[in-house]
């Protein structure tokens, strides 16, 4: 069984994560679109932290017999990987758009410059 102290500490950490994400959305430093995965992470971790029996059962499924909280780490790691992968796709899209903007701006500037010389 998960030690009670581990369960409490993990719950507090999950709640903090959720609150920080909500505050970032509120203050417009984080768009809802990019916050959803973080919120899902927080909620799943919170559920697994509070629901000690559930964590135990899942640990049994995946063959973790010694220390059920290890599953908590594994789940957290998976979610963090998902968030990172998601952000990599977001960055790639931003990079593409940045190229388009730079080209468009340079072409416009060239057109304006050509107009002045005439």
């Amino acid at each position, binding site marked *: 069984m998960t030690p009670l102290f581990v369960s409490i500490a993990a719950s507090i950490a999950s709640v903090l994560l959720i609150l920080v994400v*909500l505050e970032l*959305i509120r203050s417009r430093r984080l768009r*809802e*679109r990019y916050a*959803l995965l973080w919120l899902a992470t927080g909620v799943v971790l919170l559920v697994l932290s509070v629901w000690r029996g559930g964590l135990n059962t899942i640990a049994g499924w995946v063959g973790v017999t010694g220390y059920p909280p290890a599953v908590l780490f594994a789940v957290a790691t998976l979610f963090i990987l998902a968030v990172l992968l998601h952000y990599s796709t977001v960055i790639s899209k931003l990079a593409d758009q940045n190229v388009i*903007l730079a080209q468009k701006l340079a072409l416009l500037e060239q057109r304006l410059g050509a107009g002045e010389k005439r």
Partner: protein
Amino acid sequence: MPERRRIAIVPARNEEAAVGRVVEELRAFDPELDVLVIDDGSEDATAASAAAAGAAVVSLPFNLGIGGAVQTGFKYALEHGYGTVIRLDGDGQHDPQEIPQLLGPLARGEADVVVGSRFAGGNGDYRPPFARRVGIRWFARLVSLLTRQKLTDTTSGFQAVNARAIRLFAADYPHDYPEVEAAVMVVRHRLRILEVPVRMRGRETGASSITVLRSLYYAIKVTLALLVGIFRRRVVPLEEG
């Protein structure tokens, strides 16, 4: 104060088959009305067919999504000093003949944002598919609760707004399903929103850009935005009076 000009803003993405007729209908409805089409990164000839029909066209360098496209229109309206914006979709489902219904309450000073609703006033011959109906109802309930006012068609993009609302929307406009969040934003800024019944036509061409899974994602996202939005600071200070 001289009567300020009106402009129709029409966001369009890959609507080359429909947008030309929308522009023509608008110009036939009122030759004095300026028409701006925001081409939201289309891959087809949307921009060309809008321009050929006589609209001013702003072409975005890539797809910004409906919110970003519509806000471009509001910024244009603000920069050019328009006093009224009429907003309608580029797919032809909004009938320009209904525009007077939207402008009436603005002219009488009864509202700052007037929304054409498919459900208000009981002309309910519009029956959307089940999933969409659930979504529409969910947001109607939630937005009505948050605005303390009965609103029935919170995703309707057929709207007319006055100068105060143009200023607000140019400063801040939501991203996906922007009308839902915008309704709450409007009320939070102590502007008045009003629904009037309108008839809408079915989509003439093109497919609606919404699938079931995406709808669920948007429903969750917009709900989150609505709930967090209540606690946000105002982007435009309240006006006196």
